[in-house]
């Protein structure tokens, strides 16, 4: 089969960095001006390509944090300790720099208004990024689909987008937001403690009878465990969508 070289949507394009904004100690959002961007669905990702002066290239995928309705394209990157690309994006990249990217990519891990609800979102650490896009999109289109986001993080300071999502949830009866903190929690913390397990999911997630669309995003082990518990609890695996991150990915 001749290689399809379609112009347009999946060619590499240059975006200009408008701002690198710290979200937590380990993550920053890259706010980008991408004049050739053609729009995206909530949950999709981009491939980013870096080229060193000697021609050495590195490529990684990052979930899009901005909603389709947002004016600027935003990616949120977690700095991995031994990373090759993330320390550059989080630590060196600055306003005015150009970033080569292609996208949007992915048609599996997306939520559109027509998909409806209820929607169960389960995020491990930086797995929350595509959910921000979905939640902002849901708000922008005025969807009343019931949504629950359960996010696991090491500490409250490690929860990405907390200042943005808490008010959103507080003002929306149909949006339930909760965190479970795995390593440390503030004094008097009334939220959940410890890693997500089957008991917590049975307690806070939609029931199988609710027939939710479930999205799980985070490190591979986290995703597999959560999906396994949901299926063991009676959820239909065909309504569970997963996206695994790894050191080589977002």
């Amino acid at each position, binding site marked *: 089969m001749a290689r399809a070289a379609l112009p347009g949507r999946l060619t*590499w394009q*240059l975006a200009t960095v408008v701002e690198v904004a710290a979200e937590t100690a380990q993550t920053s959002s890259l706010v980008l001006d991408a004049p050739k961007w053609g729009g995206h669905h909530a949950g999709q990702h981009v491939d980013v*390509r*870096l*080229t*060193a*002066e000697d*021609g*050495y*290239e*590195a490529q990684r995928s990052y979930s899009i944090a901005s909603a389709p309705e947002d004016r600027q394209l935003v990616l949120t990157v977690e700095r991995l300790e*031994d990373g*090759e690309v993330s320390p*550059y994006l989080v630590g*060196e*990249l600055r306003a005015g*720099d*150009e*970033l*080569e990217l292609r996208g949007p990519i992915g048609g599996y891990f997306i939520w559109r208004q027509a998909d409806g609800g209820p929607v169960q979102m389960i995020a491990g650490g930086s797995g929350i990024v595509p959910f921000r896009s979905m939640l902002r999109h849901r708000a922008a289109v005025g969807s009343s689909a019931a949504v629950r986001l359960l996010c696991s993080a090491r500490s409250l300071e490690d929860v990405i987008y907390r200042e943005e999502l808490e008010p959103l949830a507080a003002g929306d009866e149909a949006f339930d937001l909760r965190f479970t903190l795995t390593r440390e929690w503030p004094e008097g913390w009334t939220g959940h403690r410890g890693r997500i397990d089957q008991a917590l999911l049975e307690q806070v997630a939609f029931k199988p009878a609710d027939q939710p669309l479930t999205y799980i995003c985070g490190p591979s082990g986290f995703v597999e465990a959560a999906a396994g518990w949901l299926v063991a609890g009676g959820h239909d695996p065909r309504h569970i969508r997963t996206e695994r991150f790894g050191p080589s990915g977002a």
Partner: protein
Amino acid sequence: MSPISRGFSGRRRAEVDPSRVPPGQYVTRDFPVLSAGPTPHTQLDAWSFTIQGAVAEPVSWPWKEFLELPSETFTTDIHCVTKWSKLDTSWKGVSVDTLLTGVDTSVGYVTAFSDGGYTTNLALEDVTGGKAWVAYEFAGERLEPEHGGPARLLVPHLYFWKSAKWVRGLTLTPDDEPGFWEGYGYHNHGDPWREQRYQGD
């Protein structure tokens, strides 16, 4: 070439004697874990190493006997086709020359095969004459599963995809039969000093 990303240089590169670095390679102090599949966990009492194929008689060693074979401890440089090189790595293992002692064959090629199904092809002359080992220790410790333990093939003069992790034996063959990556276009020989990354290089 793609536009340059200001200030990006990849991993911090160690300062080294350039004569030890094959063309296109970068020296790292890490030891990246790169696998085509999940880490197998073969129990040692089920493990064996076998020489088979175009031989008068196949020969096989279970784990305990394998560890009793004469072994060598040595230091060498390794070069991965993904462009990282790691210098002065130390290993302990059994020389393939030792394993082939007394093996009667007239053919010129081997296919190394591993738990999980991985294969790679080599010329017999690339695994003999002190050029290859079946290694079970790295840096003085038992080789970790993610790096190929209990034992991996070690052929440092060729790109590291030839140093098959989780190796279980060698099949001697009359022809050079492309292994897993070679069948997709990686070089049958794989000499990093001649930058033989892909077929035709």
